[in-house]
């Protein structure tokens, strides 16, 4: 969908029907030339609040943060330029930094496929017109509207060693549950699961909407041809919803690289540094150690990673996202 919308915004003369409509638009424009020029000013006017907001609340701070990343500013002393030393420290002298990068990527790689596949599976199930289906739909969506603080606090309690719900449940079967939040192996997994459950409802809704849009006649035709359900899914459903999959994946990837709340509340980055993620590290450096220069440098490295990944995904989309003619 995104593709075709760009074409409409910038009409390019091509052969055939499109060319005709472009020419007629041009004629209309010539007649209303004064109004056309006025349109330009309206355009700028309408976007001005957003642009001003961007300059003041986004670009300004970003530039300032960029500047700060070249200083050694901390809350209690005056900033002094130190060139690239913050970046150097992060990339070469700080093993914790690379741990955070690794943890962030592990989290993302764990969360995104799980989230997308589960959301898709749920959407497929919920598409069916069975009694009571709306009930499940609502339930699975409710974590999305809950505050992350509330959600995570309850799960922290559920995963408590020994007296938590899960380990008490396992005790009934004679199994000694591990220290879920104090184990180098399990803690990240717990965070991933808790995060997936929180947001899967959102992607599920996006997929549901997309599934509804697949014309029924394709399915009917396929069934007449005797195609198996799996074949139908792979050859018809899947290709037609790839734009949604792309959108959901991009949003989920970006979000997963920026997680903070669940780490802050549930593990505080621990045990040790096993759940230190980049944004948590930035927070710690800035608001606990008051090392603004270093924190800003790390933040920019994170931004570069996100930007790179997003551009990469955007380029890849031409390969696998299917747009209807």
């Amino acid at each position, binding site marked *: 969908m995104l593709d075709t919308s760009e074409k409409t915004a910038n009409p390019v003369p091509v052969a055939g029907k499109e060319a005709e409509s472009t020419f007629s638009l041009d004629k209309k424009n010539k007649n209303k030339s004064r109004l056309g020029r006025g349109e330009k000013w309206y355009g700028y006017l309408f976007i001005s609040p957003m642009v001003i907001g961007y300059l003041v609340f986004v670009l300004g701070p970003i530039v300032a943060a960029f500047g700060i990343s070249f200083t050694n500013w901390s809350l209690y002393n005056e900033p002094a330029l130190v060139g690239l030393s913050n970046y150097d420290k992060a990339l070469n002298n700080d093993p914790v930094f690379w741990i955070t990068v690794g943890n962030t990527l592990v989290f993302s790689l764990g969360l995104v496929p799980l989230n997308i596949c589960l959301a898709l599976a749920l959407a497929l199930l919920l598409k069916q017109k069975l009694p009571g289906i709306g009930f499940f739909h609502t339930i699975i969506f409710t974590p999305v509207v809950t505050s992350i603080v509330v959600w995570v606090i309850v799960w922290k309690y559920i995963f408590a060693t020994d007296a938590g719900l899960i380990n008490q449940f396992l005790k009934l079967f004679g199994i000694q549950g591990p220290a879920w939040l104090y184990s180098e192996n399990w803690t990240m997994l717990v965070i991933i699961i808790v995060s997936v459950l929180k947001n899967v409802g959102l992607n599920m809704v996006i997929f549901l909407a997309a599934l509804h849009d697949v014309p029924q006649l394709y399915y009917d035709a396929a069934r007449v041809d005797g195609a198996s359900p799996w074949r139908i899914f792979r050859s018809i459903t899947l290709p037609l919803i790839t734009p949604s999959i792309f959108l959901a994946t991009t949003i989920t990837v970006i979000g997963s690289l920026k997680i903070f709340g669940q780490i802050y509340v549930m593990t505080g980055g621990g045990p040790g540094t096993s759940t230190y993620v980049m944004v948590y590290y930035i927070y710690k450096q800035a608001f606990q*150690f008051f090392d603004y220069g270093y924190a800003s440098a790390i933040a920019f490295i994170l931004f570069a990673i996100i930007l790179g990944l997003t551009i990469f995904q955007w380029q890849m989309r031409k390969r696998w996202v299917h747009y209807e003619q």
Partner: protein
Amino acid sequence: MMASKTAPDVAWVVERSVPQLIEANQLVDISSLKNDSSYNFGDIIPATLAMFKKGEQVYGIPFSTPPMILFYNKNLFKEKGLKTPTELYKEGNWTYDEFQKAAKAITDPSKGVYGVKMLRDWKNWIDPLLPIVWSYGADVFNTDTTSFALNTPEGQKALQLYNDLIFKDQSHPKPGDQLTFETGKLGMYTDRYSNVAKTRAVKDFEWDIAPMPKGPAGAATSLGLAGYAVIQGTKYPAESLEWLKFISGKDGMSATSAYFVPPRESVLRSDVFLKAAPQPSPESIQMAVLDQMKGARYNPGHKNWAKVDAAVLTQMDRLYTQSVSVKDALAMMEKEVNPLLK
């Protein structure tokens, strides 16, 4: 708040961050209180002021100096036919050995009962460790807090005891656990005296307080320290000082002494403090709190405390996940912390 200049005029400051705040010129000099006759500055126990002074200048007044003490569940001790910590203390026999034995005896996995828990929050390593460490003759830092001092044989013994309680004896809840004393599932619980506020609400079992056990180097406990200070930049310096005078004067401290252990001699020995509530008994308070305060020491502070805390916690976590031995953990701590103390 200080960064945004929206801090209140008078604030409750935690002792650990006071050196940092004094360095950064965030607190107002209130040394004038020393000469105020109605204030009775001398009534304040001198040792409690140490953290709030820089040289002869005073920057804050302590209002609560609760020691770490032991809360214990009388019912659980009785059930196992054990002598209570109070009884053992009166005999002169309240040692860490007895402590460990009692904890083990009380632990009952089938009922989810543990012998002892020494912390409230698994991110807090200093409160459970300091009393043990000191009573084994070791310390976390050297006297002027310029180097890490726990990596010694005594330090190792102390940390090993703590580690054994959790993993060898299994008489201490495992990391990640959230049990509290009020649930009646803990035989013993160490915390600051101020926790009585919570414990007084317990109706299901009998409890009492006792001093911390003694180790090879004697009995030791740590004193928490919270103080009032006037924040730099206040628009009402004179009024703030008056307010501070009031709440930290004899009457003010008496009023808060139900929960806060007052650093004023006169209030400490008064009925207002000792008879604040039916539990614990004045006798217990005398034993567990007043008698211990003389020899107690303060939690250390440092202007780089946040980073030191994080470095030590990382190694403690490795102990908690059993990925490293006590010896190696201490060696790592020394390596990581020393550069931060310069």
